């Protein structure tokens, strides 16, 4: 089934935040962000700005009726700076004016004086200073200390990954509309409407029931609008609360890039030990996560780094420790993969380095150690593994042996161009690692004319979740999809939602829709049984016709709906779903946190121009474990898009902060994201259909985040090509592998 927004998307009729028609009297806001990354505010002079044309009012922390705090996991993030600024761009004042231009002009007239404090941008320095967001965590399996003594090969090193700017093409923003009795409706570009509502209630000092957060759709999120969307919504709501006027703020791209956090950069140490047969016996990793100035989601991101620190491999002895380090950067946050990719990169680096030292190919070590069903992950869950089927199928389907020979031949015959290839197996756990978040609700109404209206907590941001929700309802009822309408995501229709994240949105909300629909259907079947003088268990509905024992009757869906209504049977239901069987004990760091895992293998081939350091990606061929896909079209799009984003992270997307903590890569001209050239020349995706029972909706496994990690393969393919040109190159493990780094690696002595 096509994306249900196809028609409006292609006609420019889809409504995003910035397209909502403005209510009369709407005012416009803009944030004045700290010009310094760390310091004490000595003076803040708003008088000139206040006198500026069109300015209605300027808000600071002093105007907050409730608490000046928006930290979700740790209460360490003020909405407005009070006397200390912790990062460049930290909100200090919110100017509200009669036009965007006036608000922006007034910002330039604000005078601030800041006594500078030491700026830290390096997570390792922060760790030395003991400046941590939360206490470090360690995942342990077996006894790595003892196991290292039995290893024939022990290799250690450093692996680093840079951050990643989300660069959703729709920037952040919100539009707050005061309602009667002190309520406020906020149209927000957020992945987490409930998070916005919860923090807004605290800041404004009002109950949550006064605040409706409504989301039609996002022009991309990728994790960047999970926690980071909250502040803009609250600024607007705060102004609307005081002024009793609608207030809108839609960020300019440069404001968005400067003031919002990104994917957490990591700097990690690894140590890996193998026996003579290349079995990995022991692995130690120490992760230094650059959290930025506040916790935001970093502690949860950190946790997922640990969950995925052994990727798709079984290693009997593991000690992995992770530090969430406080620095003077904007609070870093969720980004597709949520710490998983950062952890996987390190184990892949360790394997690559070990292979080099031993004199074998990484391929052999990878293949030898793939996780099998029944093997234990470092967090105690036992694998139900599709790692080998994916790996083996990719080898045969994409003719790995032949490709390898061709590449060897090409490299022997060419001096100025070298090819490289890599294998990238992935394993990604599905569920929020915070167990309580694995719940969802859906509200389903069947109207008396037979049409259906579905509301869930899922936010549509391009991942096609609304299409999948609609499919669930139309499949359960067995009615024409055109009879079902998806509603916007509103905290007044569905309460206490989890954010659309963790790849779990379709599963959680889909199951809630399924439950709601089934409950309504059960009641309708009782009505049908009464009419047809049979038992309700004999009744089914197929293509809008009531069947008894699989034989069609004269009764249609529409008739049965109306009849149920006339008999005063409820045609509405709120379905509630909580993922069963998952648990995790953080005091032991053991449990069964994931509903299931998604597996896959990517084979990446690249060609490096050894004169210039430039490269092209010839092919990324993937075998991906879909379970039983419920929408192949949408899932394919997710995989392609995820791979392109992963390649971007690994190759060209380079975030640069200077020592003063200023973002230098602050526009699209200084921060390069994949364009149409960056897509691999060949991109094949094979759907591995697995029949293992899983907790996915219609057994269609989650597909949002896992494919991003295939992009890691590009880094290693490039590195292999560099090594083919210059085997002595000491090129390390520092992503992104920009053409500059490739060039340095090629001519490294």
């Amino acid at each position, binding site marked *: 089934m*096509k*994306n249900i*927004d*196809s*028609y*409006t*998307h*292609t*006609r*420019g*009729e*889809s*409504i*995003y935040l*910035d*397209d909502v*028609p403005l209510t009369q009297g709407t005012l416009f806001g803009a944030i004045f962000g700290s010009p310094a990354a760390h310091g004490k505010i000595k003076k803040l002079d708003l008088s000139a700005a206040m006198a500026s044309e069109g300015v209605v009012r300027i808000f600071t922390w002093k105007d907050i009726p409730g608490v000046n705090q928006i930290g979700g996991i740790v209460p360490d993030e003020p909405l407005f700076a009070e006397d200390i600024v912790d990062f460049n761009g930290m909100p200090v004042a919110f100017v509200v004016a009669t036009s965007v231009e006036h608000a922006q002009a007034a910002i330039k007239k604000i005078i601030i004086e800041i006594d500078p404090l030491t700026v830290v941008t390096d997570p390792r320095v922060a760790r030395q200073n003991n400046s941590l967001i939360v206490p470090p965590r360690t995942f342990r399996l077996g006894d790595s200390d003892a196991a290292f003594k039995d290893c024939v090969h022990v290799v250690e090193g450093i692996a680093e990954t840079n951050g990643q700017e*989300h*660069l*959703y*093409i*729709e*920037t952040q923003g919100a539009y707050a509309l005061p309602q009667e009795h002190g309520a406020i409706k906020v149209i927000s570009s957020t992945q987490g409407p409930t998070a916005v509502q919860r923090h807004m209630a605290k800041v404004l000092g009002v109950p949550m029931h006064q605040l409706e957060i409504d989301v039609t*759709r*996002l*022009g*991309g999120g*990728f994790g960047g609008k999970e926690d980071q969307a909250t502040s803009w919504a609250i600024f607007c709501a705060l102004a609307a609360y005081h002024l009793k006027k609608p207030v809108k703020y839609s960020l*300019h*791209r*440069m404001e968005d890039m400067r003031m919002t956090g990104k994917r957490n950069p990591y700097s990690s140490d690894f140590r890996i030990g193998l026996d003579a047969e290349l079995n990995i016996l022991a692995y130690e990793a120490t992760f230094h996560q650059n959290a930025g100035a506040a916790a935001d989601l970093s502690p949860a991101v950190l946790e997922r780094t640990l969950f995925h620190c052994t990727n798709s491999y079984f290693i009997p002895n593991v000690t992995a420790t992770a530090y969430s380090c406080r620095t003077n950067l904007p609070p870093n946050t969720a980004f597709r993969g949520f710490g998983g990719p950062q952890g996987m990169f390190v184990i892949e680096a360790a394997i690559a380095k070990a292979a080099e030292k031993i004199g074998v190919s990484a391929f052999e070590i990878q293949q030898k150690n793939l996780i099998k069903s029944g093997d234990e992950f470092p967090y105690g869950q036992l694998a139900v593994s599709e790692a080998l089927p994916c790996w083996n199928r990719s080898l045969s389907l994409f003719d790995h042996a032949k490709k390898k020979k061709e590449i060897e031949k090409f490299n022997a015959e060419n001096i100025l161009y070298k090819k490289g290839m890599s294998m990238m197996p992935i394993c990604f756990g599905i569920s929020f690692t915070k167990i309580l978040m694995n719940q969802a609700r859906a509200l389903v109404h069947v109207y008396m004319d037979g049409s259906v209206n579905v509301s869930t907590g899922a936010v549509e*941001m*391009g*991942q*096609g979740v609304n299409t999948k929700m609609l499919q669930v309802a139309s499949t359960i009822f067995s009615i024409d999809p055109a009879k079902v309408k998806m509603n916007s995501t509103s905290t007044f229709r569905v309460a206490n939602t989890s954010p659309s994240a963790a790849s779990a949105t379709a599963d959680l909300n889909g199951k809630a829709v399924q439950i709601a629909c089934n409950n309504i259907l059960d009641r309708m079947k009782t009505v049908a049984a009464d009419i047809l003088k049979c038992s309700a268990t004999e009744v089914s509905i197929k293509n809008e016709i009531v069947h008894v024992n699989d034989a069609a009757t004269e009764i249609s869906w529409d008739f049965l709906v109306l009849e149920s209504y006339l008999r005063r049977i409820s045609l509405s239901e709120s379905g509630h779903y909580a993922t069963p069987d998952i648990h995790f004990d953080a005091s032991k760091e053991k449990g069964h946190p994931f509903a299931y895992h998604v597996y896959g293998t990517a084979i990446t081939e690249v060609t490096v121009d050894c004169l210039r350091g430039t490269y092209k990606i010839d092919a990324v061929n993937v075998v991906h474990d879909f379970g039983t896909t419920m929408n192949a*079209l949408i899932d*394919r*799009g*997710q995989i*392609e*898009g*995820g*791979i*392109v*984003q992963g390649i971007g992270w690994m190759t060209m997307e380079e975030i640069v902060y200077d020592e003063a903590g200023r973002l230098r890569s602050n*526009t*699209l*001209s200084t921060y390069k*994201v*994949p*364009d*149409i*050239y*960056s*897509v691999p020349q060949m*991109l094949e995706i094979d759907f591995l259909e697995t029949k293992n029972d899983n907790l996915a909706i219609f057994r269609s496994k989650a597909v949002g985040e896992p494919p991003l990690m295939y992009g890691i393969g590009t880094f290693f393919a490039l590195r292999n090509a560099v090594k083919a040109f210059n085997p002595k190159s000491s090129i390390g493990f520092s992503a992104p592998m920009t053409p500059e780094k490739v060039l340095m690696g090629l001519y490294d002595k």
Partner: protein
Amino acid sequence: MERKQSFSRRFFLKTTSFAGALALIPPKAKALYTELKQRLIPTKEIMPLTVTINKKAYEVKADSRTTLLDLLRENLHLTGTKKGCDHGQCGACTVHIDGQRVLSCLTLAVMTTGKNVTTIEGLADGDKLHPMQQAFIECDGFQCGYCTPGQIMSAVACVNEGHTRSVAEIKEFMSGNLCRCGAYNGIVESIQKVAI
């Protein structure tokens, strides 16, 4: 009047980006620069504007500094054209002027006097989609849809310009339109489909 119309948005950006270098400049030169800037950047001036948009004639008054993008979105409520960067770097705001594609965020509204502007809203013929819109649906040329209006306007121009002889050529002439969702393969396919 003629002269002022020819100031492009790019010009503003260049002058303002000098500001960063200001710290290094001696005070005397700074004063000179400030004066120069004041003389060069036109101040607010409301100008009448007659323009045809999607076959409909509009007579509006616009600030001489307003971009075509803002005119479309803010003044005329044609919100199909999207703002992704406002700096000519993403392509989301692509529209056609007299059949040629332009970035509406880099075009001053007053420069379109007497011209024919086509936006995404003007592409379909009533309920009947333009072949490129149809192709984007069939080939899955989008995910979140935010870049899509710009992509489609660029794609239509790409075909009209005849830049579709190979995948490489399509890519070259579509490289100004970013899609963060990474729907690029579907976009190329859509163009190939219409070009045949």
